[in-house]
């Protein structure tokens, strides 16, 4: 029963997340690139997506800190690494370049598959190839390399 409920929660959370992305404007690559264009015609409106999301998530995090375990699982699966290392910075810099080139990051790329547009499908396909390539080259690694 708990296992089934976990699946229902996953589907529902994914849906709310995808609906939130749709409402927020994050699915529009042109607008995302306008947000990143701080030295040009900067459109700061999408900063409010991050602000709203972090605010709501922060309240949730504070609540979970008082819980010994999640309601439907045996333990919290949170990243344990604390050190800022070269992998983190190099990977994030690579991500930023791809994000700036396209205006797409993983969540909006997946959600916009619903519209069936060829350009976003091409992006999503090569994004998955990039992830699979990483998995291939790092197959021996523990799952400590998963966070977002």
């Amino acid at each position, binding site marked *: 029963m708990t296992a089934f409920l*976990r699946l229902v929660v996953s589907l529902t959370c*994914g849906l709310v997340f995808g609906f939130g992305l749709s409402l927020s404007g994050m699915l529009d690559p042109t607008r995302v690139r306008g947000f990143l264009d701080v030295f040009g015609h900067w459109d700061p409106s999408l900063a409010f997506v991050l602000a709203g999301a972090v605010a709501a998530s922060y309240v949730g995090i504070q609540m979970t800190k008082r819980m010994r375990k999640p309601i439907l699982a045996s333990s*919290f699966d949170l990243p344990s690494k604390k050190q800022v290392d070269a992998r983190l910075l190099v990977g994030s*810099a690579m991500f930023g370049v791809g994000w*700036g080139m*396209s205006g797409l990051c993983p969540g909006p790329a997946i959600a916009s598959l619903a519209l069936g547009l060829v350009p976003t499908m091409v992006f999503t*396909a090569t994004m998955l190839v990039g992830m699979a*390539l990483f998995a291939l080259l790092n197959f021996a690694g523990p*799952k400590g390399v998963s966070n977002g």
Partner: protein
Amino acid sequence: MAHYILPCLGGLLIGVSSAVFLALNGRVAGISGILGGILHKPTESWLSSILFVVGLVLGPLVYRSMLGTFPIVRVEGSLPILGVAGLLVGYGTRLGSGCTSGHGVSGLARLSPRSIAAVVTFLVSGAVTVSAMRAFA
């Protein structure tokens, strides 16, 4: 006004989704991590990850059924540019352990130093990339 209110509302929903996913299932709602986990190997949480991704795609469809139209998606750039960008985003988010959701939403909310460093890094490199592309266009 809607230009600022809708991002806030959408952001709140994204944050609530992340918080509920953590409180109930104990997992971080990080999209690149979820996708990477699906590609890595089937574990007990595999089906859960698949369903989260299915839900993500259903989001815009529910949006259309409620508001009568799909959200705006204006894609710029040629297919080769988008293809290279996809590779960088896919490999980079796995190497850097997260993307806008895992580091940006959940990580910042946890005040994680790694996530703060990651968010600053990808915002700066994203901004530099957009400016550089405009300069050379």
